[in-house]
């Protein structure tokens, strides 16, 4: 079956995304925005060198990012490899912060479907609340949309009560047309969230990519009534970038979408920049890295 790609004009989408980056977010709006952004963070560590100790530190940071500023909420979730899910579950017990696990041969996904499903089952059995899977770019780039969707359906089945985020790895798809197409495929196959990137490829959640995906989510919700959430991962490393993504959500989908139930930001270093900018709104001083714990 020959694929029909939707039309997205790159110059136009990037102009609109950049234009929205010029919104001036000050004072109370900035504070509220930062708190919202923190509440949407999936605090992430996905390194070969991750150990239980490292994950415990990260969990403590996620539950209480800034002891000196109690109005700063907890993050939405901690995101780890399946091997460390059990550690995170224990460390986060009673805090309300979710445990998300990557699965399906993250990040490249170049393993058999059976292996991807086994990976998912391991994470779910260990107690993960959320599963972040990767689509098969190998199938997508070969034009095999059916296989891309079949894999998502199969993974979703293994998720049980856990919610499923589908990572498109937008940097590898080719164009914005492809990003929109992949977004639709994923939503139609049952994704609970669509996510931009693994954070391991060259580019992540650029403003243009975020805008294309948010528009797809909007059109899908209008057409079917079903709400699919959005996760921006990769490249959102400053407070300014995080607020820009919130503006994109606000002006594409509306204020009611500004909740961690529908929007997540996958990141590690952005959290401290959010805290520094928040502190600046209180003290008027430009901050320094040492003002907050790194983990």
């Amino acid at each position, binding site marked *: 079956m020959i694929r029909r790609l939707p039309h997205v004009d790159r110059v136009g989408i990037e102009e609109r995304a950049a234009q929205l980056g010029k919104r001036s977010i000050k004072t109370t709006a900035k504070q*509220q925005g930062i708190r919202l952004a923190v509440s949407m963070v999936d605090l992430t560590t996905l390194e070969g060198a991750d150990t239980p100790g490292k994950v415990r530190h990260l969990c403590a940071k996620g539950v209480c990012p800034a002891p000196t500023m109690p109005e700063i909420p907890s993050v939405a979730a901690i995101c780890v490899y399946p091997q460390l899910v059990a550690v995170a579950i224990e460390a986060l017990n009673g805090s309300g912060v979710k445990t998300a696990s990557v699965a399906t041969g993250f990040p490249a996904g170049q393993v058999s479907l059976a292996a991807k499903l086994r990976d998912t089952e391991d994470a779910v059995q260990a107690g993960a609340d959320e599963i972040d899977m990767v689509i098969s770019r190998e199938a997508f780039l070969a034009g095999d949309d059916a296989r891309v969707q079949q894999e998502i359906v199969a993974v979703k089945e293994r998720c049980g009560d856990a919610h499923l985020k589908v990572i498109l790895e937008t940097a590898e798809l080719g164009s914005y047309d492809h990003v929109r197409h992949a977004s639709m495929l994923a939503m139609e196959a049952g994704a609970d969230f669509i996510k931009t990137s693994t954070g391991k490829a060259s580019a992540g959640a650029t403003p243009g990519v975020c805008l294309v995906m948010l528009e797809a989510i909007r059109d899908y919700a209008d057409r079917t*009534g079903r709400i699919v959430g959005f996760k921006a991962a990769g490249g959102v490393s400053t407070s300014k970038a995080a607020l820009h993504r919130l503006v994109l959500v606000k002006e594409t989908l509306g204020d009611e979408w500004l909740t961690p139930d529908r929007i997540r930001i996958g990141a590690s270093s952005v959290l401290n920049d959010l805290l520094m900018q928040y502190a600046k709104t209180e003290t008027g001083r430009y901050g320094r890295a040492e003002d907050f714990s790194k983990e």
Partner: protein
Amino acid sequence: MSIETRTSIVWDYAPAPESTDHIRLRDRYGIFENGEFREPRDGRYVPTINPATEEPLAEVAYGGPDDVAAAVQSARAAYPKWAALKDLERAKYLFRIARLIQERSRELAVVETLDGGKPLRESRDVDIPLAAAHFFHYAGWADKLRYGVNAREVSPLGVVGQIVPWNFPLLMAAWKLAPALACGNVAILKPAETTPLTALLLAEICQEAELPPGVVTILPGDGGTGATLVRAPGIDKVAFTGSTAVGRDIQAALAGTSTHLTLELGGKSANIVFEDAALDQAIEGIVNGIFFNQGHVCCAGSRLLIQESVRDEVIAKLWPRMGRLRVGDPMDKNTDVGAINSAEQLERIEVLVAAGEEEGATRRTIECELPERGYWFAPTLFTDVSPAHRIAIEEIFGPVVSVLTFRTQAEAIEKANNSRYGLAAGIWTDKGSKAFEVAGALQAGVVWQNTYNHFDPTAAFGGYKDSGFGREGGPAGLRPYLNIVR
């Protein structure tokens, strides 16, 4: 995940006003002639007001007939030396002006917004940078004229009288002055009645650039001043940007004379959306096309022609998108749509919108809070519009878009061309060959494909039919200011 009810989240942008405390406006501005500001001879001082607040900003001298005659005399006296200057030296003055505009850009942007009502984001990001770019571009032509017009020898025309409108005051002044001066002419510029201030700041910049006295004259005034200027003996060329009605008067007034003339007039440009367009980007193009600068744009995409097969989808996306426009204080950096330039213009818009409703079109206006004082009109969409309606024919020059439909490419072209205007058009389609064929068939001087309202000093701009003649921008913009000797 299903739709849940929740306590509603509201994230408002806090007010983000641009500061004005670094601006110093004089209480009064005289006429800028012979390198200095002077008192009017037979003119008078008139306040210029901020249309968003109705507060006066400064008093400005409007020139009377004696002032016009004196301006022409001083320009004529300055002309020979300017024309005889080594061309690279002329270029250097224009380069200086370009750089000074860049150096004083924030001040110019703030004053432009205060005086005219357009959002600061636009004056900061569009008007002022493009004005500097025009001077920079034409500075580079001054010593390359024979490449620009493919001639072996050229000469300037002499003294040019230039009248600019209130919608892009500084930018239009740059569009006029830069090519005129680059070609070796001297210029008398009459800024618009309601927006003289940035032209007067440009006069200060000419002083800072040490431009020889008399090369540029800034002569504020009203329609009467302009009428006197174009008829003044000693003017070799007139360049006018404004309404078609006044353009006609000027063309009639110059009948039988040898005064050169270029006109950039009104429009009722068609923005055409085909079913194979990148729709979300087309929506942005529609919004940009008619709501940029409150629709106070000669090339505004005021007639939205939608292919019938996607009409409902386009409207379903356009209406909520219009609802997200932020209308209000132009000095707030988050404002999308600012104030209407004057009480007179607001009335004109209201009259035509009322006519639209009477004619049977369906009107929808976005809901937004408008400030108490000042002149405001909320973005408005008319559907069920027929080509015979006044709102489909006459230029409204406000944030009002009229929707018509078409079935085929040929019909789109026919409808788009069925206007006495011919300034601009927009074409939205993902098919390249269609974009180029339609562009070729449209009687419009500027055709935007999959975009709208983009301007560049290198790209010629101007109209067909009642939208005027002559081009501004690029090498084509040199021709109206030169005599080709051989």
